[in-house]
């Protein structure tokens, strides 16, 4: 199970940006690198980090913010935040 910091780092690495950017920006349209290809890159990276358990979760298609991604991961027992 991933921590919030680990998930943020995975997303930052996928978008090739500094993870600090993700603390000030939340939505995809606030981050230049988060276009449709960037979105797919994030999901592929999360899938790899979560042992292939992300690809079958269709809710990720509409997850256009960090908050939504984190929520879906928690709901599917793939991440846990204190």
């Amino acid at each position: 199970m991933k921590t919030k910091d680990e998930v943020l780092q995975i997303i930052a690495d996928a978008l090739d940006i500094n993870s600090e950017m993700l603390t000030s920006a939340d939505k995809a349209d606030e981050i230049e690198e988060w276009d449709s290809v960037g979105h797919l890159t994030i999901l592929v990276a999360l899938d790899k980090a979560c042992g292939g358990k992300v690809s079958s979760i269709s809710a990720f298609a509409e997850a256009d913010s960090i908050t939504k991604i984190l929520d879906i991961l928690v709901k599917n027992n793939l991440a846990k935040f204190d």
Partner: protein
Amino acid sequence: MKNFIFKIDDNSEISLLHDEGVFQPTATTNYLINGVIKKLHNKNISSLLDLGCGSGVVGISLFKKLTINKIFASDYSKRSTEVAKENFLRNKTSYDVRHGSLYEPWDSYKFDVIVDDISGISSVIASISSWFEGVPCESGDDGTDLTIKVLENSKKHLNPNGVLFFPVIGLSDTSKIEMTANKIFGSYEVVSENEWPIPKDLLQHDKLLNDLQDKKKINLIEKFGIKLCITKIIMVTA
């Protein structure tokens, strides 16, 4: 005519002219260029044919990144060949550009390398996409007509051990193309494989995409609840 900058990779880019009716480079163009570079970066190439050259982006990029004596290029569109000539000149590339369909301009010519970037998606998809505005696409409902013609006629235009690169895009009947490559060349190598999301303008035609998928005219996959297309870059050897 407009100027645009094409980024080959993180370290290099080229300046090109573009005009209406000339095919704009897409992600497939990048996959194709990078696939060829990956396989041929340490080779000396005497002649490379850029088939379906459009603005000349593939030939010029490869001339910049590889050791190539001369680029040969052709396109079905007369306007594309005119624009390509200007682009080859401004990028100081040794070239021979001709107008004509497929191998028609290269009757008795043989090449070390052929790079095919001719339309390889379903013509039904092309007609509703923004990629082919003002650009002809006669690849048939399943997108295979032109690629298969290229495969059928490539051996006689390749030098011994010459290689042909071409993209196989999920917006076509990929199995049919791969089976044809196998039949003609005995085997093929997948140089790269990339997944990319179907653009929003095409997703508006969801029913049409599903119909084509059901009829096996296209071959999309679904992951994360997103419709994805796989583009493979394939290499065959004469």
